[in-house]
């Protein structure tokens, strides 16, 4: 039977972040009612750029992958329409947005770059499948932003 009680959805926030010459800035943050994928809580994330949510003690509560890096490369249409595009590494400008679920206790959003895991210098062997738990790559903090508690 019909009911008339609305059900609040999860606690999520949309972040808009700009990149200019390698510097990240938080353009906006706003609560949004949207189903967001759960945060990745793996101890050793794959290489790439991430936004992490940290608590007051600086502990990462989870992260979301946002791309390979924050270098601001762009894809450009092919010379001939219908062909293959190419990547242009230019002025280092970029902007992106992502919706993240906000865990209890989260106070900061931290942009990090996870590097490639250390290798022994050999190429991968064809046919070899990868370990489920690769060695962790170096984690470099790129930027840190305060999460607006009122908004989130």
């Amino acid at each position, binding site marked *: 039977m019909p*009911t*008339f009680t609305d059900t609040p959805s999860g606690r999520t926030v949309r972040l808009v972040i700009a990149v200019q010459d390698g510097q990240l800035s938080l353009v906006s943050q*706003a609560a949004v009612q949207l189903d967001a994928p759960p945060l990745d809580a793996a101890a050793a994330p794959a290489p790439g750029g991430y936004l992490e949510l940290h608590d007051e003690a600086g502990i990462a509560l989870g992260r979301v992958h946002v791309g390979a890096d924050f270098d601001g490369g*762009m894809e450009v249409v092919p010379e001939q329409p219908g062909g293959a595009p190419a990547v242009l590494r230019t002025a280092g400008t970029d902007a992106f947005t992502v919706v993240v679920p906000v865990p209890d206790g989260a106070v900061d959003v931290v942009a990090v770059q996870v590097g490639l895991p250390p290798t022994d210098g050999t190429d991968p062997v064809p046919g070899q499948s990868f370990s489920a738990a690769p060695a962790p790559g170096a984690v470099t903090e790129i930027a840190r932003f305060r999460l607006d508690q009122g908004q989130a």
Partner: protein
Amino acid sequence: MGTSDGRVLGTTPFYGSAPRSRALNIVLLGDGFRANEQAAFDTACNDFLTRLEGTPPFDGLKDTLNGFRVNVASTDSGADDPAAAGGTGATANTYFDATFGAGGVRRALTSNTALALQVAAAQVPELSVAMVLVNSSIYGGTGATGGTAVRPATFSLAPQAADIGVHELGHSGFGLADEYAYLSGAGETGQDRHPAGEPREPNVTTTTNRASLKWAWAVAAGTPLPTMSNPDATAATEDPRASTVAAGTVGLFEGANHFHSGAYRPTFSCTMKVLAAGFCPVCTAVIKNRLGQLQTPGGGALRQLFAADDSLVYSVAGNGDLLWYRHDGRTDGTFRWSADSPRRVGVGWDGLRHVFAGDAGVLYAINDAGDLLWYRHDGRGDGSFRWAAGSGNKVGTGWGALRQVFAGGDGVLYAVNESGDLLWYGHDGRTDGSFRWAPGSGNKVGTGWSALRHLFSGGAGVLYGVNDAAELLWYRHEGRKAGSFDWAAGSGSKVGTGWGGMAVLTSGGGIIYGVDHTRDLQWYRHDGRTDGSFRWAPGAPKRVGNGWGLVADGLIYGVAVNGDLNWYRHDGHVDGSFRWATGSPKRVGNGWGGLQHLVSAGDGVLYGVDGAGDLRWYRHEGRSDGTFRWAAGSGNKVGTGWGGMKRLLAGKDGILYGIDPAGDLLWYRHEGRSDGTFRWADGGPRKVGTGWGGLGQVVAAADGVLYAVNPGGDLLWYRHDGRFDGSFRWAEGAPRKVGTGWGGMRSLVAGNDGILYSVNAAGDLLWYRHDGRADGSFRWAAGSGAKVGTRWDSLTHLVSGS
């Protein structure tokens, strides 16, 4: 430059009607369009969504797409085109600062994407993808290099520039990687071999192990892995060869994710490699899986759809949510909806059999018990979740036995009873939901109305009906105020043709909306509504929405010899044409081979009798598009001792019939049909017929109609008028012979609206439409008997899903 060079005019949802929280929300922003050039931007937005909806697999997922355009007036027209990059040297002051020539490459058209995202997120907080369309005919565009965050693409109006927008959807919308084997192109270094580690994206890999391959499901056993390897041992360049295998082969093709070697893509070509090449099967599956999750239970289809008299449209979604929409383009048939449409204004409406709008915010619903319930949506002006006190009040009983019930304005309700009489009611308690009715309520004001397939009101006493010839007929009830038998001259006039197979809803003032099998919402305005003349608004019909599919008709389920349950959707079910949904059949279940009986009860509910004689309940949530999604509780045991039945039949509303070994027809009503619980109507089973054991094929259709083939091959028609309470009442004259020569049929399936399918001795699937279904007369649609399929004799069970 920048925001001082223009202003945001506003946002218009111009495509789609999916709830924003469960849709791919595509936000298009205009740059370099002056205030008087906004029409060009509007056209470009329409063109892009039209293109996208025609691109597989989005063509089958239209009901998950929403398009929003953000109109922005710039000071100047066009974009900067620096001479240093080979351009004209033109400059333009625009809101998002669009410019060609980034990095010295003229076709690299960029914009202030941070500002674009800021505006897009402010205008449509639920955005999934944002794109900037630049008012220039020069070919150019850029997008992101990958990643799962949303990065805007920027492209011009030049033909094929929008290709990059579709490619970007692969990144931003679905987390797909680039499949091309280089970064910047010729002469590059550092892209020889992909680094160790498995990429996170679903469409590129570094492994060649067949067993652990991400897309192993798509690789044929005979396809070698790797399928193509880069012959350049140094990997200094990408593999320059053409494909060495058949087009479309899925395997491992070396060169992907911007590297010449060490990484593989699933197919030789794909939109993620070559723009406009078409998405490969792996990327297609990723997109379908993602959007399939967004679809509302019920496959994105709506359970009910109706319009109110003040530009409002309501729907009951597959998950039972009541959704509110406001059509701002109602008077002229333009594709303009309030920016916040749709909004959820109620939950749990899927338990109601029929919902329709009265006036001044009043909604009526008929529940399973046949009660008429009253609601008043006080939040109708803004789509808020506010309802009048007393909403849900019972204001009538016994409405379940009526064939068609609809509101006629000013508190008047009309209904057609089993005899085809049109009945009039005046609800005096309509403003407060009280149980008060005008004197004369229940008066008969017409006869012979059961011959009309769809019946609806146009307001001010005007009624419309669609007959079996798909004609739209006009009536005006002069006696609507007192419930008398008075009709305007000309009532019964034909005012339209081709209205068959259409779900129709009206909102007064001559406005009629229709939804056909394409799921588009079409707008009509009947300018001859006051006198019944054949005059319509210029340009009607106009498409004002898409993705408005009601729970689909034409569905058929069949159990294959290996026990798989196959789904089919016959898109030609209205006229018997040989048109089937893309991808039919689709496998939607397995292990169905051991059932003794399988029947369909509508709304995706199937009942099966297993080997132990237990009755099992299932509800197929993916019935509209054939996806493998089932309701929780599917497979529940809801009855025992059904193994002894010779036949099992399912009508609507939870009514089941069983033919026992003695040939008696037994009636049951499953009260738990919506959730698969073990609840049954009191007093069942009830014997409602005898002598059914000697019949061949027997099937139940809608509205209590049963069809049976007797030993002589005659097709017999019955209508069980006592179906709601299990009483022994049948339509006068039943059974009636409505066909001959049906004896050789292997299977008989009954859909909605008189549609029957049979499988003949050759295994052909034949289509019929019994236009005399309401009264058992011997009338059939032209084309009945048309062959619409072959080799259907291999299925062990065959049932309609409609």
